[in-house]
């Protein structure tokens, strides 16, 4: 089971803008095994979406560029694929679910048209067979009157329903991996729970690996096996899901965990916050990116970029202070 499906090594994706080079993803490495759900969490601008679009080479042409690194998907070097190979790679091997379900379907074609079109470009099937396949796919994702839904336009469906249609489309060609980029951010809590349950069910049935990108740690706890925390284009912590909850090591992860209000807690205390704001991505790369907000930062943090080190088996952390003898303890310094 623990066979690597996707291996990303030292991926760097830069954006060339008139204001300078923005280091959106600056040296990210991770690995996803077959049938595993991995989560990437981080604030907006931390590079989580750029990482996922780099994997299927969907970066805006011109501005964004993969500068270095390697992406290996099930034996294929993704960065060496040409245009034609890319077309079959996307969708057949890896498919993607985007944040906003209403805009990822074309508003001018009926759902049935869009689904059969997809089926018929991938395999030889006449119109009627394709239609039947689409109907079956919709039924699999829990849409009850599938026939009627095939005959509706996307605007006639609710957000949750649209996202189901997109999940149905993404599993049509039984891909080995699904990249879900904030799949439930635009949805309400009850619908979010339905969609997440569905994704998990699909993963169970088809043994598809899922790369789940989110800023909601609750979603990570519910879904993921392993998780990577990103901050300003870099991985700060990478470990298994329960390890991250029980034994987080990076100060940024502590801040993230502590700043969430808890439903069950009775305390009237102030929420602890991370002071300040994330750095400008054009100016990063000379020190620890978190050093200006970190209560534990010292001289070395402000002058040397920390490397991602395996502090415990399977637990990677990028922090100078944590690597020192004794390390840091959570809550050791009051955040003034």
């Amino acid at each position: 089971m623990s066979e690597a499906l996707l291996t990303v090594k030292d991926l760097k994706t830069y954006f060339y803008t008139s204001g300078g080079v923005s280091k959106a993803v600056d040296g990210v490495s991770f690995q996803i095994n077959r049938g595993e759900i991995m989560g990437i969490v981080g604030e907006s601008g931390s590079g989580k979406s750029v990482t996922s679009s780099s994997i299927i080479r969907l970066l805006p042409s011109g501005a964004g560029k993969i500068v270095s690194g390697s992406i290996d998907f099930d034996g294929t070097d993704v960065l060496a694929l040409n245009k034609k190979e890319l077309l079959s790679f996307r969708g057949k091997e890896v498919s993607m679910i985007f944040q906003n379900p209403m805009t990822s379907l074309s508003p001018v074609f009926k759902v049935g048209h869009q689904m059969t079109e997809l089926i018929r470009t991938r395999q030889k099937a006449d119109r009627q067979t394709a239609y039947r396949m689409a109907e079956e796919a919709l039924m699999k994702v829990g849409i009850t009157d599938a026939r009627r839904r095939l005959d509706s336009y996307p605007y006639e469906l609710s957000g949750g329903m649209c996202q189901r249609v997109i999940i149905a489309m993404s599993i049509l060609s039984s891909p080995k991996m699904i990249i879900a980029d904030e799949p439930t951010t635009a949805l309400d809590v009850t619908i979010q729970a339905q969609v997440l349950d569905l994704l998990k069910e699909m993963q169970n049935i088809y043994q598809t690996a899922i790369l789940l990108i989110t800023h909601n740690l609750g979603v990570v706890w519910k879904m993921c096996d392993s998780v990577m925390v990103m901050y300003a284009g870099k991985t700060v912590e990478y470990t298994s899901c329960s390890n991250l909850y029980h034994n987080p090591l990076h100060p940024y992860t502590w801040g993230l965990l502590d700043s969430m209000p808890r439903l069950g807690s009775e305390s009237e205390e102030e929420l602890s916050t991370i002071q300040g704001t994330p750095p400008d991505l054009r100016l990063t790369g000379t020190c620890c990116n978190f050093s200006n907000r970190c209560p534990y930062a010292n001289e070395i943090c402000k002058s040397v970029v920390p490397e991602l080190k395996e502090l415990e088996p399977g637990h990677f952390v990028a922090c100078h202070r944590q690597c020192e003898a004794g390390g840091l303890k959570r809550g050791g310094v009051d955040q003034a």
Partner: protein
Amino acid sequence: MIDNSIILQIKNLSKDFEVKGKDLRRKKSVLHALKDISLDIREGEVLGIIGESGCGKSTLGRCIVGLHKPTGGDILFEGKSILSVSSKERFELCKNIQMVFQDPYSSLDPRHTAADSVAEPMIVHKTVKGRQELENKVLELFHQVGLDIQHMNRYPHEFSGGQRQRLNVARAISIQPKVVVCDEPVSALDVSIQAQVINLLKGLQKKYHLTYIFISHDLSVVKYVSDRIAIMYLGQIVELCNGRDIYKNPLHPYTKALLSAIPPESPDENKERITLEGEISSPIGDREGCPLAGRCPQCLERCKKEVPSLLQCGEDGHKVACFLYDKGIV
């Protein structure tokens, strides 16, 4: 700690919107955004309003500040109706009820500097005399919401989302209102910034003894800030309870389902999911019975015909609109 005097009273408030039919010939239909809402808001409390999109929580907030004209019912501020007053009196009332909007990007005028935006309400309502006093007041407000006074002459696009929301808060409290309606003030912000703004809002509330109506779809945020919580579904309040009780003792089936749908707080937590079948029904057109009737796992025959009203159930003013608890009261 909570003063029991009622500052804002909402009486049988309803708001309908007319929506066009699907094609030109078809008749216009009516969307019931709010249906017969009654609510007392006490001075100095934080009332959280929670619900899914389309349940009418923002419409309620907008009715309170006067951005929508209700179709029925009344809103009383300190015993005086705010709907049937002259425009001059209405203007005076505005001073007491202010609003913080969801989107910090579109709620500031892009052509005003930060200082202009904060000063504007004070100029409009003539609460300060002279330029010097105005400047001092703006400086004080910047300091209070934790903005750098060096940024006073910047334009909104030069601020980050969290800073812009701080500006909005400064502007709302600049004329010392008694009630502030916060419509999803932190939904557009990242987690770490969200905590900063929540702390700011809580701090100001304590300092000035403000009354907040805090609208959000994020239950953990609402629970953290609120003294009392109202849960809305399809234009109606289905449950009203103390902040603590919602987690400990939820009564309405919708509240239970909402709680069970929230992502877990740790990887080990195994939640029992109460699923509501199907989607939220449309608020357009007339409906019979309880709004949740079609999706409720505990639906009774009675639920399909009658609308339950919000009745006292249990201690501490815990109210619920559900026939399942009707026996206890009779």
